[in-house]
């Protein structure tokens, strides 16, 4: 079964850290599942696959994870510039970097652009999931570095 985290880390399943991760097999499975559900859903609803990839790429880049950002950039062609895309990226910036500064007006602003409740929740889940990935990757890199020392 493919695993994005292992691909990005160049981690073999039978390596020390690969085996360690398999002590929590459901954490592996559902982190991969959440990634696929958010970035590559069979039915993306009103939030296109290109928009999803662009939002995820923005958050990964802002959090300083170049490998993860490059992965997202490769998932779909960049969406055409538009006021809607600008608003989505501004929302991603705020949710990822200053979540405490968000307000109901931010949610209402997305609804005014025609996003449904499902689209808004999907966008928020997606933007909030990338910080999970960046911290998991960073923690595992530290463990790999420790083992290599």
């Amino acid at each position, binding site marked *: 079964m493919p695993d994005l985290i292992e691909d990005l880390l160049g981690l073999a399943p039978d390596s020390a850290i690969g085996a360690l991760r398999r002590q*929590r097999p*459901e954490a592996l499975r*559902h982190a991969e599942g959440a990634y696929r*559900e958010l970035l590559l859903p069979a039915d993306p609803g009103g939030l296109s696959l290109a928009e999803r990839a662009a939002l995820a790429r923005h958050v990964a880049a802002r959090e300083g994870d170049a490998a993860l950002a490059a992965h997202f950039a490769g998932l779909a062609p960049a969406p055409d510039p538009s006021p809607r895309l600008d608003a989505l990226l501004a929302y991603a910036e705020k949710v990822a970097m200053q979540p405490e500064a*968000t307000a109901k007006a931010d949610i209402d602003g997305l609804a005014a652009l025609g996003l449904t409740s499902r689209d808004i929740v999907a966008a928020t889940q997606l933007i*909030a*999931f990338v910080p999970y990935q960046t911290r998991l990757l960073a*923690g595992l890199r530290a463990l790999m570095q420790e083992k290599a020392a």
Partner: protein
Amino acid sequence: MSRFTLKPVGWRPRLAPVKAETATPEQLAALDACPPAVRRSTYFLTLAHDPGSLGERGALFNIVMYAEGGLDRADRELSTAVVSMVNGCVYCTSVHAKRFVEMTGDEPAMQRILDEGWAAEPDPRRKAVADFTEALTRDPGAVTARHLAPLRAAGLDDFEILDLIHSVAMFANANRLMLTLGDPLLPRGVS
């Protein structure tokens, strides 16, 4: 006096939640993958608008917080309370600080952390857990093997550190959902 509290904090969504009685089968199935105590909560009913992500993310949350073995449950609660303080999520802090107190019986320790932070935490294991949690929360790209040394000195093994990383990562996610999709309802006397 800090704004973080052990008192119950409420949460009001910024968009109308799904109604349990009119939820689609897909939404209900996703809710049923969430912890029983919360699957009809306003927060989970709000997330149910997108059932695919709720199901996977809810299952991930369950494993990270409740799986047997590995990092002590109280340490997971300590860590998630610290992430929530760093991110300014008063709601999540109150929930997980309370669970820490239920598990350890050590209310004074948690009250001190809520009031003053963990810079002067006297328990070396809790101090190591809180410091690593803060570092990984604030700047994941700056975390290196050096940050693991205090955890090793406090006796944490690989499996415990993996669980700690999962807990910190999970609340980078959970705090952002809570802070963005709703507003905390603070108890009287907390501002």
